[in-house]
């Protein structure tokens, strides 16, 4: 990872709200970050913290009844939030930013062959004759380690791992700038998981790709990410490099610390499993002040009153916590 690489994705003050009959759920509430070329930014957090919402929002496809309520998503000097749906569909989605879903589940249409689905995607975005298109498809299938005849298979004929590879190939073959991976390995067994992760790392190196890697599995995150963004209750808790978060010094935000502690290390002796007491807050009516303060063992008075801002405490390391940033 080269710190001097250009920023290819800039997200400013992004808000994604779900407008339900019970009220407005502030799933993503004012988050900002950037992605550099050739780096992998990991997005971690508990279930429901807003990371998947962020992921789909980057393609300007929040799940209904969700809507992007504010902020900017800037790719290629364009704020895609302002673009029309038609524009986004034609020029941005998949060409500039693509997504790798949990392919092992259900994200390939069961009634079309793999080849048809890939061809359809290709011809939608690029003008190509059939020959060249087929060549491109096969090239990428081979890249992810799949043989050519997969083109004629239906999704149900493939194993979970194979489906995941197809999904990856589909995300890559238009050569987008940013690739969002949403829990790509969660539904796979451990061995296949390892294969996929190696594949991703391999591809990243070969093709100089930029990833946003969303997962709740800290171990996977540690393996693949260059920088890590920790989300909590729709807000950014901490952003730091792999070393800063997972290294000996450890993270600064109390939440991140507890998160890491809750994952037992294979080399440590564990007498008791630690956990974070309480439950994540209701995003219909988030608590005042810092969203973590009700579960934080080190909450101060100000934490209950005012929301902490995301402040850089050292190079490439930002924290949103009153206790951590009071000396800055």
């Amino acid at each position, binding site marked *: 990872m080269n710190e001097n690489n250009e920023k290819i994705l800039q997200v400013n003050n992004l808000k994604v709200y779900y407008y339900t009959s019970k009220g407005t759920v502030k799933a993503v509430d004012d988050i900002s970050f950037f992605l550099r070329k050739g780096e992998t930014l990991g997005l971690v957090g508990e279930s429901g913290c807003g990371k998947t919402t962020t992921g789909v929002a980057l393609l300007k496809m929040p799940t209904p009844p969700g809507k992007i309520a504010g902020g900017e998503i800037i790719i290629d000097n364009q704020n895609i939030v302002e673009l029309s749906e038609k524009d986004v569909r034609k020029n941005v989605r998949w060409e500039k930013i693509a997504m790798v879903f949990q392919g092992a589940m259900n994200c*390939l249409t069961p009634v079309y062959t793999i080849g048809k689905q890939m061809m359809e995607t290709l011809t939608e975005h690029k003008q190509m004759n059939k020959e060249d298109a087929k060549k491109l498809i096969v090239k990428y299938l081979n890249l992810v380690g799949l043989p050519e005849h997969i083109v004629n298979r239906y999704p149900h004929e493939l194993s979970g791992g194979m489906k995941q590879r197809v999904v990856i190939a589909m995300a890559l073959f238009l050569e987008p700038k940013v690739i969002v991976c949403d829990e790509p390995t969660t539904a796979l067994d451990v061995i296949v998981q390892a294969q996929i992760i190696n594949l991703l790392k391999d591809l990243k190196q070969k093709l100089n790709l930029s990833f946003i890697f969303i997962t709740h599995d800290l171990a996977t995150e540690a393996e693949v990410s260059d920088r890590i963004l920790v989300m909590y209750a729709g807000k950014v808790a901490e952003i730091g490099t792999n070393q800063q978060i997972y290294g000996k010094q450890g993270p600064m935000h109390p939440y991140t610390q507890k998160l890491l502690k809750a994952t037992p290390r294979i080399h440590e002796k564990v007498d008791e499993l630690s956990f974070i007491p309480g439950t994540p807050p209701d995003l219909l009516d988030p608590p005042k002040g810092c969203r973590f303060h009700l579960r934080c063992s080190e909450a101060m008075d100000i934490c209950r009153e005012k929301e902490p801002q995301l402040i850089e405490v050292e190079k490439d390391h930002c924290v949103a916590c009153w206790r951590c940033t009071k000396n800055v």
Partner: protein
Amino acid sequence: MYWKYAAKRIFYGILMYIILIFIFSVLFNATNEATTKAQIEESLRGETTKMRNMDVQEVQKYMAERRAYKYHLYHLDQPIFQRIVWRTIDTITLNFGNSTNIKSAKGERDVWTIVSETIPRTILLFTTAMILELLLGVWLGLKKAQRAGGILDKSTSIATMVVYGMPRWWLGMIMIMFFAYQINIFPSGGLHTVPPPQGFAYFLDILYHMALPMLTLLIIDFWGTAYLTRNIVLGTLQEDFVMSARARGIPENKVLFGHTMRTSAPPIVTMALLSLLSSISGNILFEGIFSWPGMGNLYWIAIEQNDVPVLMGLLAITTALYIAGLVILDLIYGFLDPRIKVGGKA
């Protein structure tokens, strides 16, 4: 893969049919035999009235002989289980015997002739109605799914529920009262006017007579199909692969008509055809109300005239058609769903 599936299904269907006919034979054995015996007596009397030059004793002896012969011919002298088996075989081989009263168009008494005359007319009416209703229903269902929860959706859902318990034949009665008698637009029944016109006009005449029954059928049926289609399509739209297709930049109409519809096709077709098959019931009465000379109308006549052989023949044929319909349904489903068509893993 598919052929194995198809063959299995067809085999099963035939097996079911044989078992059912056997059960019917058991169930209705007493009545059937009584009818056969009555017919034998009738034919015996027919034979002996012509014999004037024999005395009473000789006639009796002759009748006893003939009776024994006929009983043997119809297996009536065998133990009960054999009789039932014979009847099953007869039924399956379309050997239904003669009717008690009813005559076919040409005046024949053979039950199979009588029944088979009516089959094409029933198929004409109901297949046409079914196709129309499927097309309209699926189209409306799609529209509803596109704006789920909107005014069209809600109002048509209410319409579905309003006609849910409405008997088709009653609506037919009302339609006839209104459109055929009050306002004389449509004919009140029958297949065609008497005497039938020739050539192309004949074809038009039949259409004219089909119009009112079809209209009645459509009014009730297609709401249900629309409602089912809407639910299935909505269910499919929530699947991940739809979102994934959208994320890949596929235009919305391709997502809807290609990915969604194609995936929804098997359950929609199944549901639609199933509900249509089960509506065979109401159709029987329905034909009667409109005097449409199909199988349903024949049921009416057979009941009124208490013609048991015709009823049995009708039952056998109806069951055969019903099971055939179920089998065809499964075959279509298997064809549309690649998981069955292609099967297995690579």
